Structures are given as C-alpha cells and as structure tokens.
C-alpha cells in the first residue's frame, strides 16, 4: 500500500499547489497503531500527512455537507463503499459534482481494530502495510504481524459490493481484488433474524433500542442524512418535549419510533456504508435494520444498492405501474 500512499500524497499536493482545490479531505494516522482519523489537508505541507491503511474506515463523503453552500472546490478520498455516498449527495443535490475532485482508492478491506489490537501493541508505530491479497502484513517498529483477511476484516468488508469506487475523478494505487468472500449472502444477518419467532424479534429490537442514548451519532455520520434541520430537532411551540413527531426523551417507546422514522428517511437511500453501526456507542446493530429494507427492495423492486448509479432515482420517490403490490 506504500505505493498508493505516495501517489495519494503526490496527487493531493498537486491539487493544492495548483489551487484546484482548497482542501483535500482524507485520513491521517491516528493516536494508536490501528486508528486512522479524518484529516483536512489545506496545504502542500499537510498533504504529506495523508495516509491510506486498512484502518481508514471513516466515510469521508459526509464531510462534503459542511461545505454544501459555499463555493470552495474540494477533493475527497473515498473507498468503494464511501463512493456511493458521493452519488447520494449529488443525487440529493447537496453537492455539485463539478466542485469536488473524487480521489478513489481501490480497497482490499478494512481490518477490525479490535482484532488487531488483541495482537499488536497499541503504542506501536505503523511503518508499512502490505496487501497480499488474502492477508494484510503490518510492519511496525515492534515487529511484523500478518492478518488473514477472512479472519480479521470487518464483516461489512467480507460482504463488499464495490471495492473499486463507483465514482472517481482519479483512481489512486493499483487495482486490488475484492475482499468479499465468495458465495457470501449479503443479507444473511437479515435473513437469520427474519426466521426467528416474531416475539423473539420483538424482544431483540426492544432490548437494543432501550439502550439507545439518543446521541444521534448514527445520524451525524450518515451521508443520507442531509436535511438542513433534522426533524427530531424541530421544536414546535406547545410541544414541550421538542419536535412534534416525538419527544427527545430517552424512552424505549420514543427510541423505537426514532429509529423507525430515521429508517424511513434513509429507506431506498441508505448506501450501506455501515458507518451508523460502527459509530454507535452502544452497538445497536443498525445496519441489520436498514438492510432489511434494502433486501426487500432488492427482492421486490430489483433495487440496486443506493448510490451505485449516479442517475438513479431513490426507490421511494419513483412509481411504476408494474410495481408489485400486495393490497388492492
């Protein structure tokens, strides 16, 4: 991956130097060996701090929203899954495609930080990463570690649909094989839950939603959540608890409703980048919730994963007379 990192820094530096963009949104090495954090390079010097490791899990497309109404040209680095977020924002007219330079990185999968830290000392300094196809080789100042992808990747990466970005202006680094396991059912988790008894399902979600802190991290990280003011924040005079749809209290019933409403706001638009589930501090399996709709929509309406195609129209905003229906 060394080659890709170098090319990334070079390209970023070039874009900044020629003033084609004001800022390159990428990642840099974080506070420990298995962490990369978003980084906003605004000068040639800063461009040298950009990095590309199997820990660059953050979906950076969301950061474009911060600049949606100014005119600054930007560059953003995306993995395959993140690139669907670019299409999402462009479709939602939140960003003019011409104003962003998309730097695409073919991705061999992201490592599960927890699994890596079980083996590697967090304090170690990451020197080089090598993608050997079926495994990653991490070289640190405290030794070399190999990680079988099948064992150590994030589960979402084993179900990877696009490891090559679906949209990019510049592809950086060599093509790498998809980390997706062969013959993997993308919706196995959903299907598993579907087969359970309704009562079991009910308790399952009740338990998870009851733990929700209403921290809104899932919303804040989501590229499909791009309203100007979230409907959960809209205060209406006379509704003491806040928004008119539901209260802001942390209460099981209200949390339930919160997740369902959010669910419907992203239905047919969720790009399945998995960030919501990753950032959830109480580990609610949000991805399994959103992917339920994705699965049904794929089965019923042959919907592709949203964000795959820049021309598509969100499923719930289209109507075809030949759509199947169950009611009459």
């Amino acid at each position, binding site marked *: 991956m060394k080659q890709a990192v170098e090319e990334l820094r070079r390209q970023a530096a070039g874009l900044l130097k020629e003033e084609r963009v004001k800022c390159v949104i990428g990642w840099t090495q974080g506070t420990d060996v298995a962490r990369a954090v978003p980084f906003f390079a605004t000068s040639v010097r800063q461009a040298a701090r950009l990095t590309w490791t199997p820990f660059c899990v953050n979906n950076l497309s969301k950061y474009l929203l911060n600049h949606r109404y100014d005119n600054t040209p930007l560059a953003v680095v995306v993995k395959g899954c993140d690139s669907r977020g670019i299409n999402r924002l462009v479709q939602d007219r939140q960003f003019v495609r011409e104003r962003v330079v998309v730097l695409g990185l073919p991705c061999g999968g992201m490592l599960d930080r927890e699994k890596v830290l079980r083996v590697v000392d967090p304090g170690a300094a990451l020197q080089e990463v090598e993608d050997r196809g079926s495994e990653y080789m991490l070289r640190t100042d405290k030794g070399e570690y190999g990680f079988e992808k099948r064992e150590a990747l994030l589960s979402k990466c084993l179900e990877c649909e696009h490891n090559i970005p679906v949209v990019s202006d510049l592809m950086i680094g060599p093509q790498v094989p998809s980390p997706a396991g062969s013959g993997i059912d993308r919706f196995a988790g959903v299907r598993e839950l579907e087969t359970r008894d309704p009562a079991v399902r009910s308790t*399952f979600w009740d338990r998870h939603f009851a733990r929700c802190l209403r921290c809104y991290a899932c919303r804040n990280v989501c590229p499909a959540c791009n309203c100007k003011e979230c409907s959960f924040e809209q205060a209406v005079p006379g509704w003491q608890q806040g928004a008119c749809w539901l209260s802001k209290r942390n209460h099981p019933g209200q949390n339930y409703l919160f997740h369902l409403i959010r669910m419907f706001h992203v239905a047919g638009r969720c790009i399945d980048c998995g960030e919501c589930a990753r950032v959830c501090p109480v580990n609610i399996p949000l991805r399994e919730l959103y992917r339920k709709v994705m699965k049904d929509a794929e089965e019923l309406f042959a919907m592709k994963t949203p964000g795959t195609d820049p021309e598509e129209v969100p499923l719930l905003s289209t109507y075809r007379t030949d759509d199947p229906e169950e009611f009459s």
Partner: protein
Amino acid sequence: MLVSRLLEYVGLEPGRFEMRWISASEGGKVAETVREMTERIRKLGPNRKMRDER
C-alpha cells in the same frame, strides 16, 4: 410492502399495518375495511411499542 415487512421485522404483529387503495367514491369499501381492521386490531390488543408517556 416495505413498511409491512419492516414492521414485522422489528417485532410488530402481522396485521397491525395494512394498506388499501380505495377511491373517494367507494364509501362502502372504506367502512368495510375499517370495520375489518378494527376487529383485527381489537383482537391483537393495544400496541405496547412506541408508547409515549408525555
């Protein structure tokens, strides 16, 4: 269809949610549908989920 599947997925009883096309001229059908639906929901009892005590 998505909604009913989802609601069942998150643990609501099947039959609590239903969608029908009824035109404004079909008064009888509205009444009939509502009656059926009411009967069904009454059997299921009150929905304990999403309850708000504000």
